[in-house]
Every structure is written in structure tokens, then in C-alpha cells.
């Protein structure tokens, strides 16, 4: 897996190292607004991949795929870096200077910090943060690693007292020093927040910032017990099924104080905020109840939550997972993991998303990442180590990375990589790399 330097640099950066204002531009798969973005052709996709027993070296790894059509290595794996152990590799995110990629393990609670700037084609493991649980005071399950200026916000999913869903939002410096833990508000300690509905569960999952409104938004999933266990066992465990999150919390971004707890029942997961400055709203989807919710600021500057669309038939457990909002806030992409479908919703009316395109990507589909210009969309299959499908019918892709072009309202597959056949594991989150970021 040798990397050959590109002849030409084809990445264009919307914002450069000396000029990092990019909040009016597109999401490039939902990055922090505090970060330089790749505006043109990305060179690489880094895939944070779960090791699996019986597959290759069985360890979690960061897999680098060359996705630049002008490269002679286009469509191939050019690097694979194993980190040791199965950590329940899940999400990853760059620091605001985009030099390092923080990748969390939901089980081991380790955060692997990869240097992606020295040689973007060949990330190296720069640091492993092992004090997440002890330093945070008991937060378990580092999930979203989200860039704020010179610091990383790390959402937790669980805790080390009971492996349930109560958790916190942890802050580290870019250099990996613990700063503080912001506990999610609970009924007995709302921390000044308003409990606007019936729930204040204290659960966590994703986080996104809307700097123009000084707002931070968090969602809520479930604790270690549930995200680590076999999905079939979970579905049959009536006790466990009671322990999912039902809240979205609005925080003061500047002070990280919780302000309002909104009822969003049924495990709201990914959060994506609109980019246009007049669009003061974010979307989330509920994994269990299978709905799109809008989290919006009303005319009285009050934050509200509203269910605005159904995604398939909830009783069939479609499990909406990753979502992505288009650069111009015109489309919302939603993957439903269980049926392997990617669905595109038209947002002409933000309060009435309409499903306008559906395509089956594979036997299961989890993450999607679109280029900021919306021309390219990438997919991976894995959801959680013990939730993933164990088998697929002949001819169906089970664990894969797939690259598509999105042209004239149609997805056209460019190439696919079978992560089981390549002895890699279960591919999860994707982040983009480009040489031009570091010129």
C-alpha cells in the first residue's frame, strides 16, 4: 500500500489556514463551522474501521482510500493503520486546525489522535488519550469529537457507574489535555435549564454548534449496555428498550451552560445544522420512532422541536442513522440502516421535508459523507459491532465502502471496496483529507 504523490493538486479550500471563516459555506459532510473545509476535490477518505473477530488482524484501524479520480491510485486502499484492540471504533473528527483526527472508541474509551497533516496520504498515530473516563469523572463512550477553537468537545454516551445512558459533554484542548466535563442536565439538577417537556434524561450522543446564534445542540441515544449488546437481544429486552434518550438539549455555546431541554422521543441521533444565515435550525432523526425532527428557533427566539416527516415504517425498524444536509440547505440525506436505503428529502419547506429519491446502497448502510459541492457521496455499512448484520443474501454487500457521483438527481456508483474481502473489518465513519489543506 504505497502512496504515490499526486501530480497536481486538485483540492480547493474554501478557507485556508490563515483564513478560517467558512460558516456560510457548505458542510463537507457536516464538519464544525470552526474548521477549514475542502471546497473542491478531496484526495482521501479516512475510514475509521472496527476490527472484527475472524477478520484480518481483528483490530480497529484507520483506512485511507484514494478518491481523487486524477490519481493513479484512485479507488484503492493506500494505507491501513491498526491501533490495537477492538475499541468499538465509531466517530471521528478533526481539530479546528485540521491537523489531527480524533477517533473515539465507544468501548475502550480510548481516543486515538492521528496526524493527518504531515502526510495526508499516510496518517500516523500521534497520541492516544487514555484518561477519558478518569479525567472526566466517569464519562464512558467518547462519541462525537467536535472542533471548537483550540479545543475538542467530546460527547459521551454512557457512564462508569452503571453503563446506562446518563453522561456528559467533555472538553479537551487540541493537545489532548482534559479541560472540563459538562454533565447533561437531569431532573434533579437541571443546571438552570428549562425542562420544556416531559423528559430530562441526561443522555447524550451528538453535538453541533450554530455560532451565529451562540447555540450548541446535543442529542441523546443510549448507554453502553444497549449500544454494545447484540441487536436481537436488545429488541427482546423490554427493560433495556426503556433506556433510550428522548431529549435534545440547547446549550449556550460560549458558556456551555444548558438552556433548554426539548422532548424528541425515540433516540434522536445525528444533528445537522443549516448553513444559510437566515436558517436558524438543525435536523435530527429518531432512530427508534423513525422520524425527522426540526430543532428551530421560533419568531420569539425560543428554541423548539417538531416532528416534520416519517422515515419508512417504524414497526419494521428501519433505523435511520446518518444524515447530511446539503450545502444550500435544499436537501437532507437520510440513511436507513436496516433496509440499506439512502433517502433524499427535499427541504423546500423546512417544516415539511418530502422524500424525493431513494436508492438501496447495500444490505445495510450507516454513514454517508458528501463533498461540500454535493457532487460526490460516499457510504459505509457498519453501525455498531454487535448491531451489524451477521449475514447477507448472496450478491448483497454486507461491509463496504462505496463511492457515488450525485448527478442530475441520480446516484451513480463509481467504485466499491468490500471490507470483509480485504480483511479490514467493519467500516464506519469517513472524513476527508486533501494535500492542499497543508500547502
Amino acid at each position, binding site marked *: 500500500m504505497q502512496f504515490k504523490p499526486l501530480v497536481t*493538486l*486538485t483540492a480547493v479550500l474554501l478557507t*485556508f*489556514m*490563515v*483564513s*478560517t*471563516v467558512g*460558516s456560510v459555506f457548505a458542510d463537507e459532510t457536516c464538519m464544525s463551522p*470552526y474548521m477549514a473545509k475542502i471546497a*473542491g476535490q478531496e484526495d482521501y477518505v479516512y475510514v475509521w474501521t472496527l476490527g472484527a473477530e475472524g477478520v484480518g488482524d481483528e483490530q480497529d484501524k484507520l483506512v485511507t482510500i484514494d478518491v481523487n479520480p486524477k490519481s493513479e491510485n484512485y479507488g484503492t486502499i493506500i494505507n491501513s493503520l491498526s491501533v490495537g484492540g*477492538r475499541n*468499538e471504533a465509531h466517530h471521528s473528527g478533526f481539530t479546528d*486546525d485540521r491537523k489531527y483526527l480524533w477517533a473515539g472508541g465507544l*468501548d475502550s474509551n480510548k481516543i486515538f489522535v492521528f496526524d493527518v497533516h504531515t502526510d495526508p496520504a499516510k496518517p500516523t498515530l500521534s497520541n492516544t488519550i487514555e*484518561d477519558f*473516563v*478518569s479525567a472526566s469523572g*466517569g464519562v464512558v463512550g467518547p462519541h462525537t469529537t467536535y472542533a471548537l*477553537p*483550540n479545543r475538542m468537545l467530546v460527547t459521551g454516551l454512557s457512564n*462508569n457507574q*452503571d*453503563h*446506562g445512558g*446518563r453522561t456528559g459533554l467533555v472538553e479537551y484542548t487540541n493537545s489532548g489535555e482534559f479541560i472540563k466535563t459538562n*454533565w447533561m442536565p*437531569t*431532573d*434533579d439538577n437541571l443546571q438552570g435549564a428549562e425542562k420544556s417537556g*416531559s423528559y430530562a*434524561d441526561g443522555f447524550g450522543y451528538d453535538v453541533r454548534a450554530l455560532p451565529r*446564534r*451562540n447555540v450548541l445542540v446535543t442529542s441523546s441515544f443510549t448507554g453502553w*449496555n444497549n449500544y*454494545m*449488546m*447484540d441487536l*436481537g437481544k436488545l*429488541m*427482546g*429486552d*423490554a*427493560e*433495556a428498550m*426503556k*433506556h433510550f434518550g*428522548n431529549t435534545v438539549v440547547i446549550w449556550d455555546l460560549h458558556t456551555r451552560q444548558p438552556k433548554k431541554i426539548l422532548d424528541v422521543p*425515540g433516540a434522536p441521533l445525528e444533528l445537522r445544522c443549516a448553513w444559510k*444565515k437566515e436558517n436558524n435550525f438543525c435536523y435530527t432523526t429518531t432512530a427508534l420512532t423513525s422520524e425527522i425532527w426540526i430543532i428551530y428557533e421560533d419568531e420569539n427566539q425560543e428554541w423548539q422541536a417538531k416532528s416534520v416527516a416519517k422515515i419508512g415504517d417504524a*414497526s*419494521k*425498524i428501519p433505523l435511520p442513522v446518518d444524515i447530511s444536509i446539503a450545502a444550500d440547505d435544499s436537501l437532507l440525506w437520510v440513511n436507513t440502516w*436496516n433496509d440499506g436505503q439512502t433517502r433524499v428529502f427535499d427541504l423546500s419547506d423546512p417544516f415539511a421535508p418530502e422524500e424525493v429519491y431513494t436508492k438501496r446502497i447495500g444490505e*445495510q448502510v450507516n454513514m454517508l459523507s458528501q463533498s461540500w459541492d454535493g457532487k460526490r457521496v460516499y457510504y459505509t455499512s457498519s453501525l455498531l459491532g*454487535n*448491531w451489524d448484520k*451477521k449475514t*447477507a443474501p448472496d450478491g448483497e454487500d454486507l461491509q463496504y465502502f462505496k463511492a457515488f457521483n450525485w448527478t442530475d438527481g441520480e446516484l451513480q456508483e463509481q467504485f466499491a471496496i468490500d471490507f470483509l474481502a480485504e480483511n479490514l473489518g467493519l467500516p464506519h465513519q469517513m472524513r476527508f483529507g486533501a494535500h492542499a489543506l497543508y*500547502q
Partner: protein
Amino acid sequence: MLCINRLLNSFLSCVRAVKALTQKPFVFFLGVLISSGVFGHEGNKHDGADESLPAAALPVLAPGYEALTFTAPIAGSYTLSHVGTAASGDVIDSSGEQLQLEDLMAGRVSVLSFIYRACNDVNGCPLATYVMHQLRAQLEEHGGLSERVRLISMSFDPVNDTAAAMDAYKQSFQDSSIDWRFVTAPSIEALEPILEAYDQPLSKTALDDDTVSINHMLRVFLIDANGSIRNVYSANLLHAETLFNDVLTLDQEERQGQNTEVPEPTQSVKSSTEYVTIDRREGYSEGSYSSSSTSLVQGSTAVDLLKLAKDNALGLPNVSDSAALTKEKVELGRQLFYERRLSINDTFSCAMCHVPQQAFTSNELTTSVGVEGRTVKRNAPTILNVKYAKRLFHDARESRLDQQIWSPLLAHNEMANPSVGYVLEKVMAIPEYAQQFDSVYGAPATMHTLGDALAAYQNVLVTGNSPFDQWYYGQQQDAVSATAKLGYELFSGKASCAVCHTVDSQSALFSDYQLHNTGIGYANSMSKPEPHKVTLAPGVVVTVDPASYAAASEKRPNDLGYYEVTLQPSDRWKFKTPSLRNVALTAPYMHNGSIATLEEVVDFYAQGGIENPELSPLIRPLSLNETEKAALVEFMRSLTGESVVQLMNDGMAAPIGDTRALQ
């Protein structure tokens, strides 16, 4: 001067506005802004750029140039955390005086930015300088801060930005009572460690016009009077209004006489008897469910476990301990019980299934989950009063607590350690444990001493003196209700519960520690997957066909109970009678957690269990009316030990071992 704010709505209007001004600072800004390459930002040009992309368009001005789009949080209404230590180093003031950077920051709230005079990025150094200029005006207007606040702009470019050059630069700003220092380093060598400490690596790019661009990411640092960095701002975050309030927040903190940051609000220390319930989510399937979640940080208090055990023995048998319990042994065992490093990947302690706050069982799972989420086929039994259990595990395969520990420690689907030796060596590699084993046992951790220590802790997790005990053994007639007394009458009489859940004349464990087939295990093994109700959210219950998630499901593990120990067909699906002490706190029930409430348990027995060839003859339909059923439940609720809350809170107060201390 304030009109500049309103005029700077766009970059072009900014240029026009600046042109119209004559004051020195704005002449400076004019120079900076024009030289920033607004009509073709150099930094955004790259070979092969896609011309269709607006990358070469006008740079978007940072928020710091615009009016704040939200109301800034009120100064002093929040705290700013320590995010690092402000480094020092050799610097030269614009007057030519050699100083240490720390001298400039000592005793004052400081705002530090790195700039260079030739910087041509409108959202780089000019932004920092512009915001600091605005900040200075606000600070001056506020008044009284001249001795407590200082602004510092330090150059990246000691070669070109000499002290004299910085002095000239300084002169472009009007005088103010708020001190603003413009400093540079005596040399590149002196500068580099400072930049490294502030994570401002220096690299240069030669531009087409033979000038040099210093690549950096804009950072402005807020530093308190003690040299602690309290906030860091980038181009997207930097705004005079929020920065002003942050400065005031630190100033207020200083004036309140606190030498360090305001401590985070802490939880009040809970009394050891205060019951901290977790939201059990009762009624969750109903739309009317409302959460009652409690904080993780409870400030629970530890108790004297040996004394507590001794004081709460009413109703419990008098069992001598195999080895003398000492405070030190109990404390060592307590530490080990909460020690996550006792698992292969440092994620799992005994307490992850035997959760203290959940009565040392797991209320949130029907059957347990082990390392890496591996399936455990049985419900975690409470270890309260396990000291008295004559046989251990649901299938009664073990008899001694000090031996029992090796089953979960080594089970692949529990703590997954590869060997006894591995566990012992790992424990001994942690200095705190090596020292404690030596002082408590005069020996290292061995199969015996590790088991003994863990057993010591479990041996004090005993709690009698329940309302039932106080009534039945203590002769306090009002200790339980008349309904509970009726329940006991049924329990020991008509309903025949006490045949297995035995009650003796001097004590009661409510278990014969024998094995019985109630049909639950049989049904689990022999039934086929059927569509079933699943609660997706409060009030949202759907019927789900298991086929819809079959591909994501492992094969359901079988469980033949005692048969797995004896291999006798007659022992199929037999499980040990559990004690009923503290049963009100230990839901869900049965060996597989398949029954959620005590009411349903009574219903199950009232209907005679589940018919199967090995069904215990003791299980038979009972003709109980609703009043009698309710009385049985009321009786079982009277079996909660007096000290159980103290034991739970003590467990919550225990240190949780994890990887930080493991080198």
C-alpha cells in the same frame, strides 16, 4: 469612532468607510486592509482549482468585524475553565526594554495575540488587532480597569518587526488608559519556543511579489492574573463583545478574591441514608411517562461497613466468617470490586453488572452484557446477603465466594481475562494493589488472596433488620402493615411460597438454595420467535416481527440450568431458588429477568408456572384473589433491609479503578 461598527457591514463598505476617516488607527487599518489582497486572496489560490467554485471570491469577513448576532452571555454569569498555562519567554517591548512575557501578564487579565505587521489576511492579524482595538475602547469606557487589564500583541516576525518598527506600529493607535503593549522577540531562536508553547507553529510561504506570508492559524489568548489560559479564540469566535465579557468575568473573579478560577458547582454531600433512586422508567410504555433522572455526581458518603453489617443483622443467620474480616481486607475488596482493570480491556468491573445504585444487581437489563457487549444469558443476581448463600450462581455450580470470582473473571463473555496468572500479574503491576496485598496478607495477589479480598467486601454487603424482621423477629407489631401480615400468612400458608423461600424460627433467607423447574427455562429453550410488542418511545408501542431484525441477531443462547452442571436429564431447566430479601429493589425477576414486576411474578406462580415435563410438583395453580395477590406483593416489599441504602451509597462513593493509574 463607534460608527465604524455600523459601517463595517461588508468589506467594500469598510474600505470606503476607512478612506473617509482621518484618525491614525484607521489610516493603519486602511493600509492593512488594502494590502490584504481583498480582490484576490492569495491564500486561496491553488493549481488546478475548479473555476466553477467560488473559492477566489471575496473573503467573507469574520464575525468580529460585524455586530454580534446574539446577545453575549452576561459577564460573571459563567465560568471560564483553565485550558493551559501561559508560557513566558524573552521579549522586547516597543520601547526597546527587554522583558519576560510573564512580567507583562503577571497580576493582570491579559489578552495576547500573535501578529506580524505585514500580515495581509483580513481575517488574520488585522482581525485580531481590530478586535483588540474595539475591546480597548470598551474596557476604557467601562472604567477602572487600567491597572487590571493589559493587551499584548506579539510579532511573529522579529526580523522585520523590530522594537522600533513595533513602536511605529503602536503609534498608529490613539492613547488610552488601557495598556496595549506591542512586543517582539529578540531573535527567531527566542521566538520559536514561545510559538511552540502557544501552538502557533511558524511556516512561511514565498508569495509572487517576493514578499513572505507567515502561515498561522489565528489564535487570541485570554490569560488570567495567575498566568492561566482561560479561553482561546480563533477567527470565527473572536468578537470584541464576547471577549469584553470574558475579560470582565475574569476581573470579577479576581476581585472576589479568588486566586484560581471559580470552582464548578459541586453536589452537596448526601447523607449515607438518603436514597438516590435512578429513574426506573416505570410506566415508560405510556404516553404519560415523565422522566425522573438523577445526577451521576451525587457526593455519596462511605460508611463503616463492618459496623453496619453488625448493626443490621436482625433476621439474618449467625454465620461465622471463614477468616477474620478486617477493615483493611474489606477496603481492598471494595476497591477490587469497582476495579475496571480486572477485565481484559479495562472496561469492566464486578460493579458493572452488580451496580450498587441498583441494589447490586442490574435493573436496566433482563440478562447481562459482558466485555465487548458479549451476551450473558442470565440476569445478574444481587449480591446483597450473598454471604449466606449456600450455593452460588443461578445454576448452583459454585459453593464458595472466594472461589466464585474466577468464573466471571475468566468467562469469555464476562470479564474475559485469558488466565489466572494474567489477572494476578496485572493486579500486582498496579503499585497501589501490590502494596495493599503485602500489608493485608503479607503476600502478593494469589488465587486465594484475591478471592479472599473480594469475598471480604461481599461478606459485609449484608442487610437484615427489614420491616419484616422487625415485626417477625423483633416483635414490633407496627413495623409492617396489616396487608403485609396477610401477605406473610399467604406466603407461608395457602400460596406455599415458603416451601422454597424458607423462613426459620430465628432467621430467614427466603431460600432453600435448592433447584426447581418453574417452566421459565423450558419456555425459553423450546419456544419459537413470535411477533412481540416493542416500546420505541413513551407511548409508542409497536408489534415487531423478529424477522425484521433477524439478520442482525446472534442465535439466542440456550440455557438448560442445573442440567449444565449435572448432565442429568431430570435437571433440565432447574434453577436455584433466590433469596427474597430486598426483592422490591432487584427487578427484573427470574433467572433470565423475564418478569418485570412483583405483581407479574405473583401472577406467574398463581397460574402454576409454565407446563413442561420437568415442572416442579411444587408449582401448581393457586387460587388467589386480587386482594391476596396484592398482599403477597406488600409482604415482599417489607423485606428491604434497613441499611441497604447506606450500602448502595457507599458503593457509589467507592473509587472506580481505571486505566489512568496503570502504567
